[in-house]
C-alpha cells in the first residue's frame, strides 16, 4: 500500500511533464493510413461481402467490397512465403489460414478466423513441416512438408485423423473432394502420382496409388479444385508448348496433354461448372481461354476465345474480361454469351499483374502495387495503393512559401531598376495583387471567426505551404521502385506518383539536393534520378560513372562541408561515389559499419584511404544498430544552467557515432560512443547479466549532447529499459576546456563526463527518434514507435540523468526543473500521440520543423503511415484554440457601454462638486 501511495505521489509530482493531445485536435492535426501490404492472388478470397487477404507483409485483413476500407486486420507472425502459407475459405462465415511459423518452419499454425469480425474461431499447431496444400471437404485436410496429412475437425480444429506417406514419396499437394482424398506425390522412380486415402471413423489409410506421369521432372504442379472435376496440371521441361493435365478423383488416371493454340508464356487452370478452363497468356502478351470438358479420362476442347490484350479471369461459370476502359463478364458456356459489362472504368496506368475474381467482382493487381476492385455493375468499386506499405526511405519536402514564387524576382527587379521604372513596376504589381483582395478579406474573417488557420483550406493542387508550415510533402520511396508524395495537410492524399523512377533499378535512398525541391533518387545498380519534389517530374536520369561491375549501392550520404553540399553513395565494394558536383578537394572523414566492424576512412586526393577500425570486445558480439546526430539538429545553448547559476558545459561533438551491439550467447548488450573521425572510444556501457532480448536488439537515438537507447531485458526488473547518457565537458561546474578554441577530433581532448540513468518503459519500443524544431529553442521530445501499434512521445526533460535519486529535489534542483527520480515512466496513456489509431507495423519515425518554433511535424512509416504535429514546449507561439475571441469582443463592448453611461454621471458629479451643490 505504501508503495502504491508513493508511486501516486510521484505520478502527481511528474504530472506537469505529462501533456496530452487535445480532444478537439485529434483527427484534425493527425492522419493515419492503414495498409495491408502486397497482395498475392493465391491468398486473396473475393466474396460478395468482403475481400480477405493474407498479404506479403503477413497481414491478414478483410476489406470492405463497397469502399475498400479495412474491416479488420491482424499483423501476424506467420510466414508470408507463398509456398508455405495458404488462405482458403472454411465455410460461409470463416476463413482458414495455414502458415509456417517464423521461429520454426517445421511447425504449422492453422487458424480459422471469423470473416466479418476478425475474431479467432479456433487455432492449433501442427508439427511435421510447413503446409504444402490445404483442402476443405467436410473437414480440413492439410499436407505438411514432412509427408504427413492431418485431418482437422472443421468446427473445433482438433486433429481427427493422421496419415503419413510411405518412405521415398515426397509430398506435393492435396486434393479433397466428397468421395476421396488424393495426396499428390513425387517419387524418383515412379514419377508423379497420387495416393487415394479413405477415411471413415477417424482413420486414414492409403488404398491405392495411381501413377499419372512417369517423368519425375514435372514442374509447377498446380491444382484446380471444385465442381465436378479436380484437376492438376504440370509442365515438363523441354516441352514448353504443351501442358499436362490429369484428373485426380478416381482410382485410375490418365495423363493428358494439351497443346494450346499458340505458344504460351504462362497459364492458369480453373475448374468451372462447364469444364476445365485454361487461361493462357501467349508470348506476345495476348490472353485467351480454352475450355475443356473432362469425362471418362478424356479431355475435349469445347471453346476457345479470341486472343485479347485485356486481362482475363475465370470464376465459377463466368469469364471476366478486364481492359483499361471496361469490364465484361461472359457465360462460360459453349455459346459464351455476354452476361454484363461496364464501360468507362479507369484503371491504373501500370500494367496488370493479376486478376482474381469472385462471383461478381474482380480484384485486379498492378505492377506498381495498386489494387482495384472492379464489378460489372459499378465499374471501379475502389482502389488501394499498397506500395506505401513497403517504404525504403522517406523524407519531408518543404513547399514554396506563400507568394514566394511570384514576387521574389519582381522584388529583386524593383531593388535594382531605375527609380521610375521600379515605381511603375511596383504600382502595377500592387494593382495585380488587388485582385486577390476579396479572397483575402473573406479568408481573414473566416480565420478570425473560427480562430483556426485551417479554416481557409489550402488548394490541394498547389505547391504552396500554409501560414505556419504545417503543410509539407512526404516523399516515400517504395520497394517496387516507385515514388509517392503525400500531402500532410490533406490527410495524406497523394500529391503525385511516379512509377519505375529508376527504370528497372531498385531504390536505395532518396536525399534532398541544394534546393528544397530537388531530390536525388539513388538505385542499387548505380542509377541516379533527379526529380522535382513538388511535381514528381523526373528531370534527368543517369548512371554513376565508373561504377564497379557487380557492385551495389548500400547507402546514400548527404552532408555539408565548408558550405558545399555533397551527396555520396557507399557501395558494397567499399567505394564512395560523389553524385553531385565534383568530389571534394579537402580531406574528408567517413565511417562505415561493415558487418561487425566500424571502419574509418579519409577521402583525400580522390582516393578513399582506410584509417581506423573499431572492433567489438568479443567476437560473439554483433552490431545491432548505430546512430548519429541529425546534421540539421541545432544547438542554441552551449551549457546547462543549474539552479545556482553555474553552468555545466555540454559535450558538443558533431562526430559522435553511437553503436549498439548485442551478444546472443550471453544475452547481453553494449553501447559504444565513438568519435567517427578519429575512431576514439569516448564511452562504453555494458548490460551484462540482464538477459537482454538480443533478437529485437537495441534502439538508439543521438541528440545534441546525449544518447537515449532502449532494450528489453528480463533482469533485474523485467521490461523495456530506456537509458539516457548525458555528456558534459566536465563534471566540475563552470569548467570548459573547449573555451575559445576549435577543438579537433585528433587532439587529445579530455573524455566527456557522462551521466547516465535508466528508466522502465511499459511497452516494447521498436524505434526511437528525437524531435527537431526550426531553431532548436524548443525542448526535445523523444518519439518512440511501439509494438502495440501506437506511437508515444516522452519529453527529454523527463529522461534526465540529473534527476535526484531517493531524495526530494533541493531548491536549486527545483529551479533547474528537476523532479525526483522515478524509474517508471510512460505509464500514462496520454503519452500516446497516435491515440485511438491502430498504427500497425511502424518501423521508423521522421521529424521536420514547421515554420513555428513550437511545432514539429512527425511522420511514422513501416506498414501503416501516421502523421501528426507535436509541441514539445506547448504551442507558445500560437494563440490557444480555447482563446475566446467572442468573449474578448463582448468585454470591450461592455466596457464601452459602461463608459458611455457612467461618463455623464461622473461629469454631473464633478460639476456639482465645483458648484459645491452636491448633497
Amino acid at each position, binding site marked *: 500500500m505504501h*508503495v502504491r501511495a508513493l508511486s501516486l505521489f510521484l505520478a502527481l509530482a511528474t504530472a506537469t511533464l505529462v*501533456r*496530452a*493531445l*487535445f*480532444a*478537439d485536435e*485529434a483527427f484534425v492535426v493527425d492522419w493515419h493510413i492503414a495498409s495491408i501490404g502486397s497482395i498475392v492472388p493465391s491468398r486473396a478470397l473475393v466474396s460478395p461481402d468482403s475481400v480477405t487477404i493474407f498479404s506479403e507483409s503477413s497481414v491478414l485483413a478483410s476489406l470492405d467490397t463497397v469502399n475498400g476500407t479495412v474491416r*479488420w486486420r*491482424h499483423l501476424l507472425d506467420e510466414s508470408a512465403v507463398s509456398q508455405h502459407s495458404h488462405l482458403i475459405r472454411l465455410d460461409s462465415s470463416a476463413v482458414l489460414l495455414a502458415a509456417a511459423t517464423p*521461429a520454426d518452419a517445421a*511447425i504449422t499454425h492453422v487458424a480459422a478466423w*471469423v470473416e466479418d469480425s*476478425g*475474431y*479467432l*474461431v*479456433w*487455432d*492449433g*499447431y*501442427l*508439427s511435421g513441416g510447413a503446409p504444402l496444400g490445404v483442402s476443405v471437404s467436410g473437414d480440413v485436410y492439410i499436407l505438411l512438408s514432412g509427408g504427413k496429412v492431418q485431418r482437422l475437425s472443421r468446427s*473445433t480444429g*482438433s486433429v481427427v485423423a493422421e496419415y503419413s506417406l510411405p518412405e521415398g514419396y515426397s509430398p506435393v499437394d492435396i486434393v479433397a473432394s466428397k468421395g476421396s482424398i488424393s495426396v499428390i506425390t513425387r517419387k524418383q522412380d515412379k514419377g508423379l502420382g497420387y495416393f487415394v486415402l479413405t477415411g471413415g471413423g477417424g482413420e486414414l489409410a492409403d488404398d491405392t496409388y495411381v501413377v499419372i506421369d512417369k517423368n519425375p521432372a514435372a514442374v509447377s504442379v498446380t491444382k484446380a479444385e471444385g465442381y465436378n472435376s479436380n484437376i492438376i496440371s504440370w509442365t515438363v521441361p523441354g516441352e514448353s508448348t504443351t501442358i499436362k493435365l490429369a484428373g485426380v478423383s478416381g482410382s485410375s488416371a490418365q495423363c493428358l496433354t494439351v497443346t494450346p493454340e499458340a505458344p504460351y508464356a504462362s497459364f492458369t487452370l480453373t475448374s468451372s461448372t462447364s469444364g476445365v478452363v485454361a487461361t493462357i497468356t501467349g508470348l506476345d502478351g495476348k490472353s485467351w481461354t480454352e475450355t475443356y470438358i473432362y469425362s471418362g479420362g478424356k479431355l475435349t476442347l469445347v471453346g476457345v476465345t479470341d486472343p485479347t490484350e485485356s486481362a482475363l479471369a475465370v470464376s465459377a461459370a463466368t469469364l471476366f474480361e478486364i481492359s483499361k476502359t471496361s469490364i465484361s463478364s461472359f457465360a462460360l458456356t459453349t455459346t459464351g454469351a455476354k452476361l454484363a459489362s461496364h464501360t468507362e472504368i479507369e484503371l491504373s496506368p501500370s500494367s496488370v499483374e493479376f486478376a482474381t475474381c469472385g462471383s461478381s467482382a474482380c480484384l485486379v493487381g498492378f505492377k506498381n502495387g495498386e489494387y482495384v476492385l472492379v464489378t460489372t455493375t459499378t465499374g471501379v468499386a475502389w482502389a488501394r495503393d499498397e506500395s506505401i506499405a513497403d517504404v525504403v526511405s522517406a523524407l519531408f519536402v518543404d513547399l514554396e512559401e506563400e507568394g514566394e514564387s511570384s514576387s521574389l524576382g519582381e522584388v529583386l527587379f524593383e531593388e535594382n531598376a531605375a527609380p521610375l521604372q521600379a515605381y511603375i513596376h511596383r504600382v502595377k504589381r500592387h494593382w495585380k495583387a488587388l485582385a486577390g483582395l476579396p479572397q483575402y478579406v473573406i479568408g481573414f474573417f473566416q480565420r478570425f471567426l473560427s480562430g483556426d488557420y485551417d479554416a481557409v483550406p489550402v488548394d490541394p493542387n498547389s505547391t504552396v505551404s500554409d501560414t505556419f508550415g504545417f503543410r509539407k510533402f512526404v516523399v516515400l520511396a517504395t520497394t517496387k521502385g516507385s515514388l509517392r508524395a503525400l500531402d500532410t495537410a490533406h490527410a495524406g492524399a497523394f500529391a503525385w506518383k511516379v512509377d519505375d523512377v529508376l527504370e528497372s533499378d531498385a531504390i536505395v535512398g532518396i536525399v534532398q539536393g541544394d534546393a528544397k525541391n530537388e531530390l536525388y533518387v539513388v538505385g542499387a545498380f548505380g542509377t541516379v534520378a533527379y526529380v522535382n519534389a513538388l511535381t514528381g517530374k523526373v528531370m534527368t536520369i543517369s548512371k554513376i560513372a565508373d561504377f564497379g561491375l557487380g557492385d551495389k549501392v548500400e547507402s546514400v550520404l548527404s552532408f555539408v562541408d565548408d558550405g558545399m553540399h555533397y551527396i555520396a553513395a557507399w557501395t558494397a565494394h567499399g567505394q564512395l561515389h560523389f553524385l553531385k558536383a565534383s568530389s571534394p578537394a579537402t580531406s574528408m572523414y567517413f565511417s562505415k559499419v561493415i558487418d561487425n566492424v566500424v571502419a574509418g576512412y579519409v577521402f583525400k586526393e580522390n582516393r578513399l584511404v582506410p584509417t581506423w577500425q573499431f572492433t567489438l570486445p568479443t567476437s560473439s558480439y554483433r552490431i545491432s544498430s548505430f546512430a548519429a546526430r541529425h546534421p540539421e539538429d541545432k544547438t542554441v545553448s552551449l551549457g546547462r544552467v543549474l539552479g545556482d547559476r553555474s553552468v555545466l558545459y555540454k559535450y558538443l561533438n558533431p562526430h559522435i557515432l553511437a553503436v549498439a551491439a548485442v551478444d546472443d550467447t550471453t*544475452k547481453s548488450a553494449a553501447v559504444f560512443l565513438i568519435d567517427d573521425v578519429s575512431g576514439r572510444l569516448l564511452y562504453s556501457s555494458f548490460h551484462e547479466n540482464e*538477459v*537482454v*532480448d538480443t533478437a529485437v536488439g537495441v534502439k538508439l537515438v543521438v541528440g545534441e549532447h546525449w544518447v537515449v537507447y532502449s532494450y*528489453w531485458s*528480463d533482469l*533485474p*526488473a*523485467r*521490461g523495456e529499459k530506456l537509458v539516457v547518457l548525458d555528456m558534459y565537458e566536465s563534471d566540475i561546474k563552470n569548467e570548459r576546456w573547449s573555451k575559445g578554441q576549435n577543438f579537433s577530433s585528433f587532439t587529445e581532448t579530455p573524455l566527456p563526463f557522462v551521466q547516465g540513468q535508466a528508466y*522502465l518503459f*511499459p511497452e*516494447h519500443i521498436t524505434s526511437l527518434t528525437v524531435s527537431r524544431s526550426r531553431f532548436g529553442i524548443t525542448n526535445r521530445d523523444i518519439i518512440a514507435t511501439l509494438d*502495440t*501499434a*501506437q506511437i508515444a512521445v516522452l519529453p527529454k526533460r523527463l529522461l534526465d540523468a540529473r534527476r535526484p535519486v531517493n531524495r526530494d529535489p533541493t531548491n536549486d534542483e527545483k529551479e533547474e526543473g528537476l523532479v525526483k527520480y522515478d*524509474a*517508471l515512466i510512460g*505509464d500514462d*496513456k*496520454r503519452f*500516446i500521440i497516435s*491515440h*485511438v489509431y*491502430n498504427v500497425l507495423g511502424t518501423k521508423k519515425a521522421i521529424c521536420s520543423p514547421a515554420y513555428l518554433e513550437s511545432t514539429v511535424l512527425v511522420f511514422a512509416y513501416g506498414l501503416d503511415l501516421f502523421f501528426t504535429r507535436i509541441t514539445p514546449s506547448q504551442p507558445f507561439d500560437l494563440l*490557444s484554440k*480555447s482563446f*475566446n475571441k467572442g468573449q474578448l469582443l463582448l468585454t470591450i463592448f461592455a466596457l464601452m457601454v459602461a463608459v458611455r453611461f457612467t461618463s455623464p454621471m*461622473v461629469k454631473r*458629479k*464633478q460639476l456639482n*462638486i*465645483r458648484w*459645491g451643490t*452636491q448633497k
Partner: protein
Amino acid sequence: MLRWKVIFTVLVYIAHTVSAYSLRGFLDSTIANGRPLTFSPTTEVVLRSAEAKYKSYIRADGESFVFLNVTAGSYVLSVNSIEHAFPTLRVDVAENEVEVFLTHRGNEWGFKGARQPYPIELKPFAPAVYYQYREGFNVLKLFKNPMLLIGLLTLIMVFVLPKMMDSLDPEQLKEIQQQQAKSVPSAIANPMNFDVASYLAGKTAGPSTSASTSQSKSAGSARSRKH
C-alpha cells in the same frame, strides 16, 4: 455458461496440440455498473520473455484467449488494447503447473505479487484516456475568480452604498457616524464610512465626521489642484 463451454472446447483440442504447454484465460467483460465491456478483435494478449514472444487473439466469444505451443518458462503477460488499460501478470509455466501472479512494474522479477487464479482472468482497470480537454467558458468559474469578486464589490460600493446612506434617517445616520468615530478613524478600517464616489472623482478620501464637511474639504482641494 458460455465461458465454460469455451473452456471445454479448448480442453478438447489441447489434448491434440503438438508439443509444449497451453494457457487459457479470458478478459473479464463484466463491470461494476452492469454494462458489459466489449473487446475489439484487434486486442492482443502477449506473453513475453527475453527468449520468446507469443501473441494471442480474442476468440469468437469476444473474451477468451488461448496460448498454444508455449515452452516452459517465466513470462510477462500483457494486453495490447486501444480501449482499455489492463494489469500485467506474471505467468510461470512449468511441467504440470501454471502459476499466475500480479506484477508491479519496476519490482525485481523474483518478487512475486498476489497469486491469481488460473485460467487467467484479466480485468481492465480503466478505460484508456488519450486526450485532455480544453476548459471552455464557464460562468460559475468566472464568479470563483477573486479578482472579479473584488471588482463586483467595488462596483456595489460605488453605486449602492451612497444611495443607502441617502435613504437613511438623518438622526440614524448621525448615530452611526458617531459610533464609527469612536472606533479607529481609518478609511480602510471603516469601509462603511469611506466615500468611494468622491475618491474616484479625483479626491483623496479621508475619514469624515460628516458628509458636508468632507465635501467642502474635497471641493477646496480639487480647486487648489487646478491652480
